[in-house]
């Protein structure tokens, strides 16, 4: 515990909400422009004199900017404290680490819960549909505003990994390296299908009110909780669920009714119930939609290698988990083959684990050592001490 404290004590170096002026709108893929744009972020460590040690970490679907600091709503430690901290692969004594709440999110960055300047009321469903590329464009605006010309690395897992690939496609000259953990270059039919279940659950909640729940003073908590429950199953492997819960019961004997008999039911209900405290239903709709629209090759005649044609100088690291069926190794391999075809310098390893997609956040030493090795050698090439 002492080691854990010293790894994270006082590493947060700044953050807040960056408010772009009305004449700096965010141009969206849909053709709309969003203004004024606000981006909430946290930083760890110090930017060096050359401004060459900045790392942008990008969170997953329901993550946020509280990368390695206590979450203000849940009071829990940051979502990647096991990767970000002194002596850890993302060391704030070495790197200036930035993590921003994603566009469309609900922790301070402009999203459907923000006020529409035209009406003063929350956007709700009048918020424009956004894409992964839009999210990256907003991140690029923040990075530029922070005075950073070139990022040493963009590091992301799951949706964050997709953003890392999008960075390489859209801003290759502004990144030195890119890490994509348990990501993909496109959303599959199965991915879209699971998201549709979540969205249908939210929209079926009478308290959703066509997205205008805030004005009505209610929240579609039941629908959002069910969405989370369904999604959470996709984050775990069958083996992990079996190992954790098996057919264990909550109490002695069956209820012969519909109470939570099984421990796995109780676990999922808890996941759903605690999620609604920190997440917004409309944000969930918008961000899942952005993921479903994601197909990096689409803008390159379906040839993924085309997306990386300008990224030959970027060092890539692609990592997948053997038991991840949400964004499987096959998806990562597809990315790696495209990187090879584009002549990019790439590393790839499938990490053997039974923890499923959730391995991103769990104790997985092979993930740490892969990331540590990759970042250390890239830092050496970048001339970072």
């Amino acid at each position: 515990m002492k080691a854990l404290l010293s790894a994270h004590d006082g590493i947060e170096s700044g953050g807040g909400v960056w408010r772009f002026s009305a004449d700096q709108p965010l141009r969206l893929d849909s053709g709309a422009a969003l203004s004024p744009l606000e981006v909430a972020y946290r930083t760890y460590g110090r930017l060096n004199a050359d401004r060459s040690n900045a790392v942008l970490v990008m969170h997953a679907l329901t993550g946020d900017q509280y990368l390695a600091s206590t979450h203000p709503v849940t009071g829990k430690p940051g979502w990647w404290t096991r990767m970000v901290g002194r002596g850890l692969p993302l060391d704030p004594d070495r790197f200036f680490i930035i993590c921003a709440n994603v566009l469309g999110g609900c922790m301070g960055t402009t999203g459907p819960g923000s006020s529409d300047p035209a009406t003063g009321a929350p956007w709700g469903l009048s918020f424009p549909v956004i894409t992964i590329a839009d999210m990256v464009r907003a991140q690029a605006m923040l990075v530029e505003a922070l005075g950073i010309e070139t990022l040493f690395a963009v590091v992301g897992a799951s949706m964050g990994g997709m953003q890392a690939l999008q960075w390489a496609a859209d801003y290759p000259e502004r990144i030195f390296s890119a890490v994509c953990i348990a990501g993909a270059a496109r959303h599959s039919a199965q991915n879209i299908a699971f998201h549709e279940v979540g969205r249908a659950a939210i929209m079926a909640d009478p308290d959703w009110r066509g997205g205008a729940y805030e004005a009505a003073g209610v929240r579609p908590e039941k629908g959002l909780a069910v969405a989370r429950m369904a999604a959470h199953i996709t984050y775990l492997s069958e083996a992990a669920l079996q190992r954790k819960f098996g057919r264990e019961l909550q109490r002695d004997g069956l209820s012969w009714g519909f109470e939570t008999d099984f421990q796995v039911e109780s676990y999922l209900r808890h996941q759903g119930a605690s999620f609604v405290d920190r997440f917004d239903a409309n944000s969930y709709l918008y961000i899942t939609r952005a993921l479903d629209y994601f197909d990096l090759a689409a803008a390159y005649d379906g040839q993924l290698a085309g997306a990386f044609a300008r990224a030959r100088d970027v060092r890539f690291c692609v990592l997948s988990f053997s038991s991840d069926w949400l964004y499987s190794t096959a998806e990562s391999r597809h990315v790696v083959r495209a990187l090879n075809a584009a002549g990019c310098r790439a590393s790839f390893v499938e990490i053997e684990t039974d923890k499923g997609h959730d391995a991103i956040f769990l104790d997985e030493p092979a993930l740490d050592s892969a990331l540590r090795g990759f970042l250390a050698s890239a830092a050496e090439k970048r001339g970072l001490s």
Partner: protein
Amino acid sequence: MREDFREILRLTPAGARVLDVGCGEGDLLDLLTRERGVDGQGLEISADGVSACLARGLAVVQGDADRDLDSFPTRAFDMAILSKTLQQMRDPRHVVSELLRIADRAVVSFPNFGHWRVRWALLARGRMPETRALPNPWWSTPNIHLCTLHDFLALTDDLGLRIESCAALSGGRPARPIDPRSMLENWRAEAALFVLRRG
């Protein structure tokens, strides 16, 4: 240092773009990076091997040479290395031809099944050979496509490849330049290292 590594090091120009197929834990790539400043890329099938490479800061992709070489673009590398792995490939002919599509020059080494100890084991004992170069019993060997020096020559002729040089590797002795077409060398060489180019 392994004698085949010493020979490959000698053959590698400074700053070359190098692909090491079946790079294991990256010993050779690491050597070439340190000594020749190569721009190296590895391909390795085992996760442990790749993880070890990543920890050393080498760019290595986990993959299968039989299947994944075709994702590399034509002439992307100056040199492709296949060190003592050819005999473990499911389709060695395809792998060799892919190496010379991807790279201008290929370095291929393999144990020579024509070596006298191998022939002796079969002739005198009637048993599958277990030698210094081929240490495993038949039922656990990873070597599924063994060939002699002259078998490999026939393959290079068939693929229209040019042999730039050839060296015999025996035990820990320094690499010895040989004429691979010599009958005697097909008996003498425990293993051989070929440098190939497109014809």
